[in-house]
């Protein structure tokens, strides 16, 4: 794998102002991302997991430039073409219902380059074939396709501007299991053929395990653990990663097995704790946990965990 990263996120903070006082000044702030440091190497699949509200989608929006960071910076490698595309979760709402499919697919090209209709049509046909649709379906409208086919259209659209990086924001969570398998296979094949880099955002650990080289676990707007998928899933070192993995349903695993927290809610991100963010729910806390934790290298040079007891806990596990 290439050692120089394609994209580097440096201490990204995102805060959204909410509420308004009598002259419209925001009264509070939602802390969506609280210091995300991350690199994406060329050609890898980086998985991002976490629960709702942990900042996964804000991270996607930062990468695509839909949201600009309140603090910190995103840096691309100097030789990179900076071409990035997105595939969203729900193909029902991410495709324009009033455009024929060939228009939908070629929109990213149409907006940037001057090209004739027949040329765009040909391009749409080629891309459609690559994602497993038929060339002669290109004059239909999105509603005439099934959910899986619509997600194929969304992937074809992402491919049309020939990107280097594709951000996949929950690409299969609206799909049935059998269709999910088709889409994941398609993504694997396209990556092999085109040398794409994926950032795969999902709450489904088994999808992440299957697809990704590296995995970043997010909690309350921070990365709490990042490393090679095998390492993180086999030896989860942050208590939250362990909780998350123990909670994932598995065929035949008893419901009660593993770590559990009793009914404690995710802390609000309106005001950030001045301690470890996971402190309240953590079953392993001790007196040193009342400080803000930093991401520190673990067993290997690529495995980082935001927990001062990580090594100790890894020994316990």
């Amino acid at each position, binding site marked *: 794998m290439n050692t120089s990263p394609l994209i580097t996120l440096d201490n990204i903070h995102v805060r959204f102002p909410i509420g308004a006082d009598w002259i419209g000044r925001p009264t509070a702030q939602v802390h969506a991302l609280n210091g995300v440091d991350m690199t994406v190497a060329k050609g890898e699949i980086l998985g991002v997991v976490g*629960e*709702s509200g942990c900042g996964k989608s804000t991270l996607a929006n930062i990468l695509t430039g839909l949201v600009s960071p309140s603090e910190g910076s995103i840096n691309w490698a100097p030789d990179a073409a900076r071409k990035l595309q997105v595939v969203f979760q729900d193909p029902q709402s991410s495709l324009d219902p009033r455009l024929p499919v060939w228009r939908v697919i070629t929109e990213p090209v149409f907006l940037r380059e001057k090209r004739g209709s027949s040329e765009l049509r040909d391009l749409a046909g080629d891309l459609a074939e690559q994602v497993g649709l038929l060339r002669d379906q290109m004059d239909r409208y999105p509603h005439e396709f*099934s*959910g*899986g086919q619509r997600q194929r259209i969304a992937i074809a659209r992402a491919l049309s501007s020939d990107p280097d990086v594709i951000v996949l924001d929950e690409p299969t969570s609206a799909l*049935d*299991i*059998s*269709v*999910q*398998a*088709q889409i*994941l*296979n398609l993504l*694997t*094949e396209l990556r092999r053929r085109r040398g794409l880099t994926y950032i795969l955002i999902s*709450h489904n*650990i*088994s*999808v992440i*395990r*299957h*697809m990704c080289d590296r995995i970043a676990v997010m909690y309350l707007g921070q990365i709490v653990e990042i490393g090679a*998928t095998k390492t993180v899933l086999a030896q989860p070192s942050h208590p939250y990663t362990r*909780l*998350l993995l123990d*909670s*994932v*349903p*598995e*065929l*035949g*695993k*008893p*419901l*009660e097995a593993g770590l*559990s*927290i*009793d*009914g404690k*809610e*995710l802390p609000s991100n309106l005001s950030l704790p001045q301690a470890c963010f996971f402190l309240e729910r953590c079953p392993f806390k001790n007196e040193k946990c009342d400080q803000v934790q930093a991401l520190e290298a673990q067993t290997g040079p690529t495995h980082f965990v935001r927990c001062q007891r990580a090594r100790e806990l890894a020994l316990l596990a």
Partner: protein
Amino acid sequence: MACAIFSIPGRKGADMMDSNRAVLEIDNLGLEFPTYRGAVRAINGVSLRVAGGEIVGIVGESGSAKSVTAMTAMRLLPEGRFNVTSGSVTVLGRDTLAAREEDMVDIRGRDVAMIFQEPLTALNPTQRVARQMVEVIRRHRACSATEARQLATRLLGDMHIADPEQVLHRYPFELSGGMRQRILIALAFSCDPKLIIADEPTTALDVTVQRQVLQLMRAKAHELGTAILFISHDLALVSQFCDRVYVMYAGSVVEEGPTMDVLKNPRHPYTQALLGALPEGAQPGELLQSIPGSVPNLSEPISGCSFAPRCQHVSHQCLSKPDLTGFNGQQHRTACWLFKDAAP
């Protein structure tokens, strides 16, 4: 008025005895929705049984009629928009397809409770939680508002909500998804029902919350001897939660039996394909075994096995529809010609 809310009677013993009596029995149910392009045959001969105190799962992909089956059992589909073409539905010994609407109102909520997928739409956004809970409790139990509120507090406490009084005083939008779903589960148990139908109750929740909610739900159901019909698309979740499972495809049951039996030794090609399509089964980076083709169009008549066009074991026999055939002492049953001959 004396009402026995402070000691929900321990029915456990009683239910153990009549656990063979079905709380829900669906027999060869067929149902279609008439449309101007012809009827959509949503359910094609489904038979399903939930015994007292049993946790039964229905799994299937979208369009397999798992929700419609449950809605029909509770008669929640809009009157006049559907035709029952065959079969019967019996809830606690009463025929719900023939029952009067007034009787159904009594059955729903008291004898059979339902938990839906999206807790925000199931709660009234303009009323505080307390008022909604008290209303439901008093609809089915003879007790005063104060007593009902005390019961509500206790039920929320049972759901491991740390500060029930505080939660009761809130509006639904002020609460997290997990908290809302716990309120609905508490509400479902509030009238001590014999059966709870849970339609994808945790799909909108995170995995950590999902596990908590299901643990609470199962513990409470075991305590009271309540039966649960659990509808889900998540095979792994069903394997952890249910005693028995029905696998549905295109409006028919294709396989049924004890959960671990069905999911560890699937017989029907569809169940096998579905399990094979899960990323868990494959090596990372390998291609997954997807199921070719797509689900049949239910507005066209299906003759024979509905999975035949996508099945890799298809033969001339599949032109006629196979019946469910049993193995392992009739517990594990499959609707496939492959096992017709092998059956004892």
